[in-house]
C-alpha cells in the first residue's frame, strides 16, 4: 500500500481534479448507459404489450 492516508489518495499528487474528473465522468456515463438500457427495456415491453392488446381487439 503506497498511500499514506485517504487524503493523499484523494489528492493524487495535487491532480485529484483530473483523475477523479475522469473516473467520475466515466462511471456516470456507464451508470447512464445502464439506466437508459433498463428504461428502454421497460418502455419497449410496455409498448409491445399495448400493441399486442390492439392486435387482439
Amino acid at each position, binding site marked *: 500500500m503506497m498511500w499514506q492516508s485517504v487524503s493523499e489518495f484523494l489528492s493524487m499528487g495535487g491532480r485529484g481534479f483530473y483523475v477523479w474528473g475522469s473516473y467520475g465522468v466515466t462511471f456516470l456515463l456507464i451508470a447512464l448507459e445502464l439506466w437508459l438500457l433498463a428504461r428502454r427495456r421497460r418502455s*419497449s415491453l410496455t409498448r409491445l404489450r399495448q400493441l399486442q392488446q390492439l392486435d387482439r381487439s
Partner: protein
Amino acid sequence: MKLFHFASPQTFYPLAGRLAPVFAVLAAVLCIAGLYIGFLLAPTDAQQGEVYRIIFIHVPAAWMSMFIYLVMAFWSIVGLSLGTRLSFYMCRALAPTGAIFCFIALWTGALWGRPTWGAYWVWDARLTSQLLLQFLYFGYIALTQAIEDPRRADRAGAIIALVGAVNVPVIYFSVQWWNTLHQGASVSLTKAPSMASIMLSGMLVMAIAAWCYTLAVTLKRVRSIILERERHTDWAAAEIAGAQR
C-alpha cells in the same frame, strides 16, 4: 452447423439472456481487480506523477471504441452478404456503447492532456482521430434513427459503417501526416510513459473488463431490439406476454 443454429433471433434471444449476466459479473470483478492494480499496486510515475493513472480508463475506452467499430463493420459485412437480420440487430446494439466509450476516451484524454501537456485539447493524432471516430458513430446512429423502414435503416447503417471502417485507416494516416506537419516538436499523447509491466497489466485487465461490459450491455440491448423487430412472430409474442422485466 451449431453456429448457424444461433443465427436465428429465436434461438439467440434466450442465449443472450443467459450470457449477459455472466459477462456483467465478469466485468464488475475485472473492473475491481483492474482498479486495485491501477491505484494500489502500480507505483507513482517518474515523469507524470499520479495523473497518469487516467490511462487505466483512457486506453481501454479508446481500444474498445475502435474495436467495437470494427465489430460493427464485421456484422455489417455478414448482414449485407448473408442477409441475416440478427447481424444487423447486433450492429445496432453495439453502436451506443461504442459511442459512449469513444466519448469517454475523448473526455479522459482531455483531462489527461491538461496537466501533462498544458492544454485540454492538443490536436494530437490519436485524439483527433478519436474525434472523427465519434462523428462516424454519431453518423451511424443518426442515419439509422432517421430512416423509418427498419430494413432500409439496417442496411443503410451497414453501408455507412463499412464505408467508415474502410476510411478509418485513411483518416488515421492523414491525421498522423497532418499532425507531424503542424505540430513539429510538440509532444504526443501516444508517447505514454515507458510502461512498468504492472501498469500494462492494469490496463489489460481494465480492457478485458470493458470488453465484458460491452458484451453484457450489447446482449441485453439486442434482446430488446429482437423483441421489437420480431414481435409478429409467435415465439416473440409469447415472450412479450410473459416477460416480467
